[in-house]
Every structure is written in structure tokens, then in C-alpha cells.
């Protein structure tokens, strides 16, 4: 197999796997029973899904600037995703374990 073929196979594999993680995350978001577990499924899925897609795209980009951009997107997404996960989990942790309703008015 030539280098081009190997990189193609790698891209197809990693991008497909990443897409599947997005599917898993969505299913988790829809099917899991409470907000904290849904948060768990979501953060795992989108970090891994985006990471695998970025990994798969790297061989398809030729410029170093393109690599930096792709990796920066992933690192920033990791940072933001982890922080938001912490923040939401913190906001969701009242004493009785029920998610607070912020809707105001008719809930």
C-alpha cells in the first residue's frame, strides 16, 4: 500500500469512528435517565468525536498552519468542554439531587 492509500484508510477510519462517537453522544443525550449522566455521555462523546475527526483530517491537510489550526480547535474544545462540564455539574448539584428549574414561571 502506498503512503497515500494508508493515509486515506486512516482518515476514513478515524473520521467514521469520530462520527460514531457523535451518534453515541446524541443517543446518550436522548436516552439516559438524568441530567448528570447525560452530561457525562455528552462530554465524553464530543471530546472524543471531535478529537478523532481532527486526527483523521490531519493527513489530508498539507500546510503546517492547517495542522496548527485543527489541533488548536480540538484543544480549545477540550478546554471549553471540560470547563462547561464542571460548571454545569456544579450548578446541578443541589442538596437533594434534583436538577434546579431555571425556567421561571410555568415550568
Amino acid at each position: 500500500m502506498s503512503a497515500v492509500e494508508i493515509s486515506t484508510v486512516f482518515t476514513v477510519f478515524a473520521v467514521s469512528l469520530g462520527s460514531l462517537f457523535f451518534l453515541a453522544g446524541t443517543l446518550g443525550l436522548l436516552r439516559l435517565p438524568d441530567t448528570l449522566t447525560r452530561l457525562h455521555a455528552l462530554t465524553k462523546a464530543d471530546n472524543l468525536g471531535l478529537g478523532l475527526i481532527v486526527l483523521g483530517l490531519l493527513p489530508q491537510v498539507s500546510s503546517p498552519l492547517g495542522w496548527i489550526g485543527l489541533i488548536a480547535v480540538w484543544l480549545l474544545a477540550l478546554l471549553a468542554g471540560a470547563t462547561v462540564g464542571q460548571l454545569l455539574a456544579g450548578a446541578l448539584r443541589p442538596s437533594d439531587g434534583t436538577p434546579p428549574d431555571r425556567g421561571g414561571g410555568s415550568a
Partner: protein
Amino acid sequence: MTEFLLSAAAFVLATVALGLIRILRGPSDADRLLAAQLLGTGGVAALLLLGVATAESAIGDLALVLTLLAAFASVGFVTGTVRPDATRSPGEAPAARAADRPEPAGEETRR
């Protein structure tokens, strides 16, 4: 390859769009926000795929901006309400704030 990347972008987009059902069902506002968060990450992934497939670097920049600002809705959510029981993590009492940032009361204000 281009075809594959484009269909992967469409697949990811369709998947996270499905997650928006959470916006309809709730039950809590945090759940709705999670759906929006997933839409943001999925949108970034789809844009990266689209950007590489079309070799347009500007779409990568758009993905970067979306990533930078994706957290803002959640930040607005977490900081928006005063619910001492819910919004603050343990160990950070309301009094901590006054200690953190002493307010120079009345100085230079009334004119």
C-alpha cells in the same frame, strides 16, 4: 475522499440536530443547554470536515471562532442566576466575594 468528508459532515450534523429533541423535552434548562452545546461541537466538527473537503481555510477559522464562543451560553446560564444553593460549588460562600474584591464604597462616585 471529498465525497466521504462531505457525507461525514452531513452525518454529524444530522446526528446532533437529532439531539435537539432535548430542547423540546427538557426537562431542566441544563438539559436544553446540553443539546445546544452538542450542536455547537457537532457544528464545529462538520465545519472542519467541510473546510478540509473544500480546501477553504476560512471555514477552519469559523470553526475556531465557534469553539472559542461555544462556552458562552453555558457561562451565561451558570452565572446568570443567584441561587446560592445551586449555582455555587461547595466551599465558595457568598462572603468569599466580598473578601475577593473589596469595593471602595462611595469613592469618587457622587458628583
